């Protein structure tokens, strides 16, 4: 049901072609320090990320756990704003024209900017997708219409509690990929149960042609490997944010990203036995 194609679609097509499991790290824009965000984004790509998810800091992150909540508070305290998030994406784009960037955030800052203006500025900065956590498909008629006009995908969450009929209603609005949250809880809570994953992912695939990314609760290479065996992509969020917390310099943040994202990448690639050698290099 894709109405246009942008970097996200192209990237997933490449991944499918190469038989590579996508890796989507999440960081909060402006955390641990605003001046490190663009460097961290480049380091993530160098470390093996295929798409990037960048959080727009918000004062009331109802669906996020303590780690991302803390990251948002820290970013806001250091003066992060929506304009600065857009500027960071634009700066990232100067050296990386291909890696898709998805902004993750909450509805109120989007509405305050004005939906049209927000979409225009996001597209202008080089954003490819929006995940508005508190805008489920039921409330997304306006957002998807406006984002469509700017060739931005709105990405929707599917939870373990989401019924099949809800997935069916969501599918026509969804773009980019479906984001399956492997836990009932907030971001960063407990560990996932990989065994329950396969039927859930199958159920989504039966109702949408979009790739399926899985996130919430993935922190170790072993978990990433297990999830990667059934999903098109793996999202790493709170675990990465926790590791980055307190990093003071570009070098320290770069090392953290290289080590951690590198280990996840290696675990995912170990899976892709059929992948051509250069894809795993």
């Amino acid at each position, binding site marked *: 049901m894709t109405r246009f194609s942008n970097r996200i679609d192209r990237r997933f097509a490449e991944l499918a072609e190469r038989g590579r499991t996508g890796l989507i790290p999440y960081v909060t824009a402006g955390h641990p320090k605003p001046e490190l965000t663009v460097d961290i984004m480049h380091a993530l790509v160098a470390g093996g990320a295929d798409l990037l998810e960048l959080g727009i800091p918000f004062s*009331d992150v109802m669906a996020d756990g303590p780690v991302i909540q803390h990251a948002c*508070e820290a970013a806001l305290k250091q003066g992060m704003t929506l304009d600065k998030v857009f500027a960071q994406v634009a700066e990232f784009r100067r050296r990386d024209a291909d890696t898709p960037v998805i902004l993750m955030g909450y509805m*109120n800052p989007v509405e*305050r900017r004005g939906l049209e203006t927000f979409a225009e500025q996001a597209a202008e900065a080089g954003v490819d997708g929006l995940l508005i956590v508190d805008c489920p498909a039921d409330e997304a008629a306006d957002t998807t219409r406006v984002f469509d006009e700017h060739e931005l995908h709105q990405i929707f*969450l599917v*939870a373990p509690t989401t019924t099949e009929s809800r997935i069916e209603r969501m599918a026509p609005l969804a773009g980019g990929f479906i984001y399956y949250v492997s836990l009932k809880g907030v971001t960063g809570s*407990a560990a996932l149960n990989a065994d329950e994953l396969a039927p859930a992912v199958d159920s989504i695939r039966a109702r949408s042609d979009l790739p399926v990314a899985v996130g919430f609760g993935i922190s170790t290479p072993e978990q990433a490997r297990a999830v990667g065996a059934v999903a098109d992509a793996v999202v790493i969020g709170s675990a990465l944010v926790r590791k980055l917390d307190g990093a003071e310099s570009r070098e320290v943040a770069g090392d953290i990203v290289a080590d951690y994202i590198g280990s996840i990448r290696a675990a995912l690639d170990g899976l892709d036995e059929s992948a051509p050698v250069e894809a795993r290099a």
Partner: protein
Amino acid sequence: MVEVVEKATAASADPRQALPDASGHFGRFGGRFVSETLMAALEELEQAWLKYRDDVEFQAELDSDLAHFVGRPSPLYLAERLTAHAGGARIVFKREDLNHTGAHKINNTVGQALLARAMGKQRVIAETGAGQHGVASATVAARLGMKCVVYMGADDIKRQAINVFRMKLLGAEVVSVDSGSRTLKDALNEAMRYWVTNVDDTFYILGTVAGPHPYPALVRDFNAVVGREARRQCMDEYGKLPDALVACVGGGSNAMGLFYPFIDDREVEMYGVEAAGRGLSGLEHAASLCAGRVGVLHGSRTYLLDDDAGQIRHTHSVSAGLDYPGVGPEHAWLKDSHRAQYVGVTDDEALEAFHLCTRKEGIMPALESAHAVAWAIKQAAGMDRDQVVLVNMSGRGDKDIHTVADLEGISI
């Protein structure tokens, strides 16, 4: 006379049945702006509410609890000396302060706890600001033998030590919330987070007419007993409907409970009184309807207080129960449709009304309710002597004596 009564009965049976609509909207307000992870739980709650709302046995048990546990109906009281002071319309109080636990909050928690039990949930959670809703939740949980966890901002815990102890005495666990502004809005965020993670066995007793659908309608329905009684009592006592209703508005549950059964009575004016704090011209208030704008907070589209970046602002009110940056979406709808008017009363005006009401009537209002009293005095002054201004005396002021003493530099 007979005609009036019949019309009243028909209108009060189910006013404006159409709202919220099937997707939980009041016009452009309300809705369900939550993470997908909560949708199933909200749908389950909505189904249960629709079922038990019309269930004769459930309603009978609720009525019985309201009568014998809460102490309903609460009286309608003519505040004679305050009326004389204002020099205009008769000021009458709907005495929700006489309810068990001292405020209107118990109407809702009794209802939601019965709903929780009917749904087979073993545990209830609640958010609280001043502690009133937390105490009311802990109270019903104790009575029904349920485990109760109350989320409360760290700053509020310090300010409301007595209510924290009351909750503990009732067997509830009080969880301190250290995030954000460490007040009510953050406690609500945290309760939502816990609910998302433990939705199988946990029922979230939301304390006001805010939040995602069906909460605004559900909490309104449980509090509408206030308006239904007031309507009947006013007819019995004065042979007519009140000319104006006055209630304070934080999240808006006591006001919504009073207003709802009168919505179709166009001749009855409605005034929602918000906390103007240190004045509406600055930032130190909590008046989202008077001075806010439309946005999305805590699961619904409504009026709220935010900065130009859309970050939710810290609010201020002398009354912790009104100190909230959002408001129930049905109030937003009533404002935009001009059915109700929303006004502000400052900290100082509320404190003055607190003392005046205490001295003149022997009724110590909660600081929240004192906002309504302050406006009612102004309102009554400009009205005729045969008219009636009905104020929701939503809670008693015992909980606030430390706040009042501190503000006046008195140590007790």
